[in-house]
């Protein structure tokens, strides 16, 4: 922990919070943010439209009788903040509440940033995307188009509230992506690969394999057969395969859905939801992982929360307001896209704990099924539990062996039935980078798992 200079000094924050609670309220909060983001895209062998953004602003929030009132401004000056606070306070007519005194915020360092992205020249970043591009094209003459992108963001936040919370966090993220298009005999396919994390430029400086993998996926699909349809066993790959847990479990454990009864997991705390060899976590304090932060966007320190322990549902994911409502401790899951958004309970890095099988063991046990190596993404409706995942790289499993690549496969199912259908977990945990959308807000979310096998799930394909 180190003391850090913040966007807004604690004494200013105290005055703003006092003004905010001049007519009452259970909680007053000031969230300040400064963000700088750079994105480079090399498309069609040209570096086009490089872009740089800078944003600075603050969101003020009062919680009164369980309702959240908020406003934001593109400024962190005391005058603007006081004016916004007065405007928000004017809606209430209760007695003033005195906020707790504030100390200087402290910064918790979760991970090292060896090479700050801002210390690397843009020319070097342009060279990186060029190398990724060429690495993709070198995989074969059938690779006809490549789009390689590099993005970095540095975000400083400071959060103060009327309960005395005073926190700040500095967040550096880098991400490299590549989309390759392959064409042969009139058939066109594409493959995507990504690497990112809370880290400096060192994470991606030599990651030309991102281009190679993207191209290999596209090339494999050229020989793909149409996906089978119907119910069958599925082995889900590690890393981005964790979208499975994210959609089938994670969203349903976010406390806003749970408290409204709008989740199939409401009322299941302490109940068995999966076989006894299944354990899962949400961990916002995992060093270097894509969804990690020192504190969440309400100033709560991030933590590892066990959500499933040996098959039993043991935890929900809370922000401050929902934790208060449930009389539970906040879990550091109050996250927001920017100062223009109020916080919501959101996942950080969500993953299945590794088991003892090897991926080969899981595949060997399948007579006829699907090996879903990676997903393009997924979607769930927590209230019904129905989910869908698009398989971006998949293969048939025949007699315990991985055979032909398939295209156009989608997994569709229901959360509780899918969890109960898990019949094997491998030992190769990996966390991948995703963006999670909810309530109109997008936040970086780590998704991960070792290889996982489902006894039976519906595969939707184009083969009738």
């Amino acid at each position: 922990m180190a003391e850090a200079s913040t966007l807004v000094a604690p004494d200013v924050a105290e005055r703003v919070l006092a003004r905010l609670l001049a007519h009452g309220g259970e909680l007053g909060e000031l969230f300040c943010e400064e963000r700088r983001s750079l994105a480079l895209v090399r498309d069609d062998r040209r570096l086009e439209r490089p872009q740089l953004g800078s944003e600075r602003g603050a969101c003020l929030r009062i919680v009164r009788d369980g309702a959240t009132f908020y406003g934001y401004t593109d400024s962190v000056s005391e005058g603007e903040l006081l004016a916004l606070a007065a405007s928000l306070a004017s809606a209430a007519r209760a007695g003033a509440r005195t906020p707790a005194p504030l100390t200087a915020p402290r910064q918790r360092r979760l991970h090292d940033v060896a090479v700050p992205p801002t210390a690397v020249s843009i020319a070097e970043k342009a060279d990186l995307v060029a190398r990724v591009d060429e690495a993709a094209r070198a995989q074969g003459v059938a690779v006809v188009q490549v789009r390689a992108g590099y993005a970095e963001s540095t975000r400083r936040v400071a959060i103060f509230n009327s309960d005395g919370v005073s926190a700040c966090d500095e967040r550096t993220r880098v991400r490299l992506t590549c989309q390759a298009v392959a064409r042969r005999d009139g058939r066109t396919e594409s493959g995507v690969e990504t690497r990112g994390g809370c880290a400096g430029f060192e994470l991606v400086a030599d990651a030309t394999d991102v281009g190679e993998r993207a191209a290999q996926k596209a090339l494999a699909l050229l020989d793909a057969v149409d996906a089978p349809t119907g119910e069958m066993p599925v082995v889900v790959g590690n890393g981005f395969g964790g979208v499975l847990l994210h959609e089938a479990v994670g969203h349903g454990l976010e406390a806003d859905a749970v408290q409204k009864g709008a989740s199939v997991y409401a009322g299941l705390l302490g109940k068995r939801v999966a076989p006894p060899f299944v354990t899962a976590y949400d961990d916002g304090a995992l060093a270097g992982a894509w969804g990690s932060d020192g504190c969440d966007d309400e100033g709560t320190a991030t933590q590892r929360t066990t959500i499933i322990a040996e098959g039993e549902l043991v935890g929900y994911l809370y922000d401050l307001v929902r934790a208060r409502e449930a009389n539970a401790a906040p879990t550091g899951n109050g996250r927001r896209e920017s100062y223009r958004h109020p916080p919501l309970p959101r996942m950080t890095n969500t993953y299945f704990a590794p088991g003892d099988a090897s991926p080969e063991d899981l595949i060997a046990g399948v007579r006829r099924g699907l090996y879903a190596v990676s997903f393009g993404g997924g979607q769930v409706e927590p209230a019904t539990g129905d989910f869908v995942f698009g398989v971006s790289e998949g293969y048939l499993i025949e007699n315990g062996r991985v055979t032909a690549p398939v295209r156009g496969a989608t997994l569709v199912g229901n959360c509780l039935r899918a969890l109960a259908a898990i019949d094997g977990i491998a030992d190769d945990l990996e966390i991948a980078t995703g963006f999670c959308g909810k309530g109109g807000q997008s936040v970086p979310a780590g998704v991960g798992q070792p290889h996982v096998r489902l006894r039976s799930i519906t595969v939707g394909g184009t083969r009738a």
Partner: protein
Amino acid sequence: MTGKGQERVSAGGGAAGRRHELAARAAAETALEAAVAAGAEAADAWAERRRSRRVVVWREAVEELGEAVSCGVGVRAFVDGRWGFAYASGFASDELAEAARAAVALARIADRETGAGLPDHCGQAEVPDLADERLLAASSDHCVELARACERAARAQRAVTDVEQVVYQDAWLEVTLANSASFAGAFTASSAWMYCTAFAGEVGERMSGFGLDIARAPQGLDPERTGREAGERAALLAGATKPSSRRCAVVFDAFAAAALVAAVGEMLSAEQVERGRSPFADKLGAEVASSSLTIADDATLPDGPASAPFDGEGSPTGRTELIAGGRLLTFVHDVRTARRAGTNTTANALRSSYRTPPVVGVSNLVVAGEQVPFAQLLATLGDGFYITDLSGLHSGVNPVSGTFSVGASGVVVRGGELAEPAREMTVAGSLTDLLRNVQALGDDRRWVPLAGSVSTPSLLVDGITVSGR
């Protein structure tokens, strides 16, 4: 409440409105001057000020009420056929100048792009008034009441067991675009929308239904109809089970059809086409749809959520027929792709906010053709499915090959009649085949502003693979 304390916002025509227009114009000019001073040969600046409001109601209580004014500028700088982009939040002149200098510095490291530059012809198309000043007069209490009325209407449906929430949102957007070739244009657009998710059936068997309405001001919304719609859609699906797999014809309702049409719209971008990333790349002039189908891009419609008098580069907007008589007539272009293809821009340079540079994309997509009553649509279908919900489109549609396989729920249709509801299934096919296989259009046209902005009725489509049991 407003985001900036003292700045009580009044209507665009009032004194305060003029002051804001001047502030936005001044912000854009500041950025332009700084870009030119830093060495840009040409530049444009998109200054935007947005007043927005969001209300969430559950069990008739306010759960969330937010209101704010926010602004910023995005600058594009051109140097020697290359271009860079930078943006800054707020209208502070030193920060805008810094963003402009950053845009120039970025342009210098970019590669030369054929056709890059400002439009040869800028201007404002004649569009109907896109801003309804009644929005500014509506109090937050009024908006809360609308959301409550919507929730009551949903709960009044017999089959409805609960309502997840009702969300009301509105925005008053003021845009000024100025460029170094002396163009300066401005427009104001307002929008108000509300949506509701209702549940039917008990937990475990529960299904949900979605209701949505959109207008230029809250006074134009119909909360009762929106709530009723959510309830009716949930009731339709209550008790759904997984159907057996088959290949058959399907009626996509307007929501589902709009999602698929929006995906087609993305594939008609000239930039995706010229880079070999669209299944329509070699189909210009070819038969790509059933002969009865017309798809047009039109940013001048009075009720179009994406309507505007000029696009993100300052080209005057218009109506462009993309597919007519079953033939693919044109792709959508901005200035750069049009110059490379030797054609004219269709004014389809889109900016979703000051934080994004213009990219080629559709504005409002309108699907047209001979429409028949819904009952006739089902009768023509005979045996198949009526699909009311699609999910997982961002991962289930392959924009390069055009194949799709997405989650779906709906109702089995037997002998032209709605039979039992179905869930946990996928519908799959190819979007290029889908356009050719459109057999008929329903008469229930509506705006669906979810993925893009699409106006479509229900579509009867043959040759869809449905996977379930």
